[in-house]
């Protein structure tokens, strides 16, 4: 892989030099200044997808993935789009499973990253994390994805420990008319989407969509087909109404059903103590959300949001159904001309139901949980257009860890129009999951060594005393657009973690019968601590009007205070690099290339830690718009290797390597 990196450099450099010498007619704005209004209105105008830092003034490490980015990288899922963000650790476990986190502690069941889709929380209490395979949207209707690294708990609540992802779809007025997407290829075997948006009356617009896909299986690390192919159908709608000059209402919903195949490795009581099998998971779910917004003035408004979310999954490991109702109120107003205050209150109700699986038992099998929370945040303008101080805190009470306070203090300084400096200190917690409190799971069977040592079952046992994990985070950031056509965003952080989860083994419990198995109970306790630190750089260089470079680099150092921690928590890659070139060589042609480098990292799992070798990967997309409303594109993904290994799941899944893939796509607007 190193070879390819070295070879690439002179190649790209020579093209850079070559392009830099191509002149453009209106290279100077001076020429344009001389034009009359008539001429200006007659000149041929092109829109260039420049990279904007729209949230330039937020005192946080924010990165925005735009609709254009999603499209131009050929992303077919939310996780693929997320690969564009700096500092995010996105690893594909197999065709239908992802491990995604920010600033460390990755895993399929990564629990320190909060995900919201149009204000709806996609983070499940079941394991404190996100079932990424369940989260999908009509990607063409996404307005932007905001990726916030660092704690966001003051605004968004518990579990926004290392980051928040906000997926925001377009207003239905911006998705009028029809859209048809169809395509297929080797890994993306077939996909299609249809959306239609219309006007219901003068004040109300709406859209509805349906989409589906079938994705191919990958290759097992030990060779052979991985049996991880899957398919999904999803539909939904959104309606927006401005029913008075001051009131707007949004109602939206989605429903999906998916059949997921997977190859699992389960422990079993008798020789060979391990069982490998293929199964099909049936999973479905849906949601319905309504939001009312009332505006008093340009500096004062309130919103009231209510949603219901439901999912069910049925697999050998676990059978779960979960219903969530959430009510959220927020009020924003300005005080004395220099305070911008937001405060809010929320209530969430969870009802779940588990059935005993092959190796899992949840006791009690059904539980109703409540969460009450309130927050207040004040942005004080200390010097107009120059210095702002933000102070705030969330206070919540949940049925697992009780009362939690999550404050933050942030300072933003704009010494010059093109420079921004900010710093923040925040506290956030990761609240316990249902499984950590109530599950009994057979994790592993250590084979018997006759005649003296019986088989030993390592059994994960829930612990209701398990408390929240905590972080105190210190961040420092700098953004500049000082050099023409270049923007640079740097964030450094130091996170101090306390009360991290560890599995504590009990003394072996001997079998009661001569042929029985001994037992070791593993309980979750808050015994680990450690710190992570590092920095992230996101740079954009608009080399020419029609050629942009995006480069991201992140460094993450992890230090645990206890020896066992790296075996239990893994070690995220120390370095990640991504480099993207976006070219518009011709008005109706787009060419995008994305390189990624991921450093060696360690995944912790019940079968021992897996060292994941560093890798380089490349995606290319070429698109052509033969006529105004039709676009044809060709996408190659993971092109540099026939297959590569990105991550090992914490337990049960069989190591799978991700295959190279190609697909073609047609997009038609009408």
């Amino acid at each position: 892989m190193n070879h390819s990196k070295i070879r690439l450099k002179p190649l790209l450099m020579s093209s850079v030099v070559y392009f830099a010498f191509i002149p453009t007619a209106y290279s100077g704005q001076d020429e344009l200044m001389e034009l009359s209004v008539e001429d200006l209105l007659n000149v041929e105008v092109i829109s260039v997808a420049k990279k904007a830092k729209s949230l330039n003034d937020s005192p946080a490490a924010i990165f925005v993935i735009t609709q254009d980015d999603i499209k131009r990288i050929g992303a077919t899922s939310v996780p693929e789009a997320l690969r564009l963000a700096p500092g995010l650790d996105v690893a594909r476990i197999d065709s239908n499973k992802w491990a995604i986190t920010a600033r460390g502690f990755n895993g399929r069941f990564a629990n320190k990253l909060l995900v919201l889709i149009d204000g709806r929380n996609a983070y499940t209490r079941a394991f404190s994390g996100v079932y990424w395979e369940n989260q999908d949207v009509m990607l063409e209707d996404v307005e932007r994805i905001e990726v916030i690294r660092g704690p966001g708990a003051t605004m968004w609540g518990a579990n926004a420990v290392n980051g928040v992802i906000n997926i925001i779809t377009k207003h239905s007025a911006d998705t009028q008319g029809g859209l048809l997407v169809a395509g297929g290829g080797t890994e993306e075997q077939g996909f299609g989407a249809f959306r239609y948006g219309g006007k219901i009356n003068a004040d109300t617009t709406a859209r509805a969509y349906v989409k589906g896909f079938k994705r191919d299986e990958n290759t097992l690390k030990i060779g052979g087909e991985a049996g991880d192919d899957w398919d999904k159908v999803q539909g939904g709608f959104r309606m927006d109404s401005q029913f008075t000059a001051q009131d707007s209402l949004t109602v939206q919903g989605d429903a999906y059903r998916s059949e997921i195949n997977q190859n699992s490795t389960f422990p079993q009581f008798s020789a060979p103590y391990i069982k490998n099998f293929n199964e099909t998971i049936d999973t479905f779910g849906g949601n319905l959300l309504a939001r009312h917004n009332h505006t008093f003035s340009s500096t004062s408004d309130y919103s009231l949001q209510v949603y219901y979310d439901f999912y069910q999954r049925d697999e050998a490991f676990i059978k779960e159904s979960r219903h969530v109702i959430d009510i959220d109120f927020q009020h924003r107003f300005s005080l004395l001309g220099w305070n911008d205050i937001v405060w809010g209150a929320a209530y969430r109700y969870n009802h779940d139901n588990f059935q005993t699986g092959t190796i899992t038992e949840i006791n009690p099998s059904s539980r109703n949980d409540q969460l009450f929370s309130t927050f207040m945040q004040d942005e004080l303008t200390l010097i107009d257009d120059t210095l702002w101080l933000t102070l705030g805190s969330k206070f919540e009470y949940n049925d697992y860890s009780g009362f939690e306070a999550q404050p933050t203090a942030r300072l933003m300084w704009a010494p010059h129009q093109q420079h921004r400096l900010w710093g923040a200190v925040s506290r956030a917690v990761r609240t316990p999951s249902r499984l950590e409190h109530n599950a009994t799971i057979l994790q592993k069977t250590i084979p018997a060594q006759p005649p003296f040592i019986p088989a030993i079952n390592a059994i994960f046992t829930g612990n209701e005393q398990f408390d929240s994990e905590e972080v105190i985070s210190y961040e420092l950031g700098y953004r500049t657009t000082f050099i023409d056509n270049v923007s640079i965003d740097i964030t450094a952080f130091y996170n101090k973690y306390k009360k991290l989860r560890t599995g504590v083994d009990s003394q072996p419990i001997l079998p009661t019968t001569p042929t029985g198995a001994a037992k070791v109970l593993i309980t979750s306790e808050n015994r680990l601590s450690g710190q992570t630190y590092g920095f992230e750089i996101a740079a954009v260089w608009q080399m020419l009007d029609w050629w942009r470079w995006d480069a991201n680099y992140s460094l993450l150092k992890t230090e645990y205070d206890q020896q066992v921690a790296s075996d239990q928590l893994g070690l995220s890659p120390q370095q990640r690099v991504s480099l993207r070139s976006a070219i518009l060589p011709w008005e109706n042609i787009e060419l995008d290339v994305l390189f990624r480098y991921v450093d060696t990292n360690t995944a912790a799992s019940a079968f021992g830690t897996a060292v994941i070798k560093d890798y380089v990967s490349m995606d290319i997309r070429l698109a052509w718009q033969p006529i105004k409303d039709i676009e044809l594109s060709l996408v190659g993904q993971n092109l540099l290797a026939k297959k590569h290994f990105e991550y090992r799941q914490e337990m049960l899944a069989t190591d799978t390597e991700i295959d190279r893939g190609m697909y073609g796509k047609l997009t038609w607007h009408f």
Partner: protein
Amino acid sequence: MLTTKKTLSLIAFLLLFLSGLNQAWSRSVEKQTVLAVLTLNIARFTSWPEPAFNAEAPLNLCVFGDNIVQQSFEAIDNKKANNKTIHIINLSRLRNLDRCQLLYLSKLDRSRLKPLLMELKTRPVLTVGENMEFLKAGGMVGLEKINGKMQLSINLHAVKQSKLVISSRLLKLANIVDLPARVH
């Protein structure tokens, strides 16, 4: 390894090949640049009522938008418009708008746009935005790209309410709409 090398050569070839096709670009201009220059020209064709600002003061052109928008307006900073020097103020927050004679509003949430324009309604602030939606919400001048060219739309009703006068020379080139803000 061989496949990797092949792929890379292929990309290099593709890049060079496509760049040859680049000529079409040289005839067109980037939209954001045109927006800024058009805004300068609109300022030149507008007269503000007497008390809006004193004779020596500069013409404050406030820009609310992302860094790309702000950068494009740098080019017209310190340019002259009817004996006045244009002074660009990049707004971080929608505050202290009294100092602005011209307010360029790039994308803003619908729910915030309307009340803001309502508040500015009777003040001598020329509001410039990027589409028809902006005019419907009570904005004065809209600049929209239609079929590859910029189209200028002016909401006469809104202009009159604020006691601003836009020269007939500019009005002739514009698509005139007379939209009272829908709520009275």
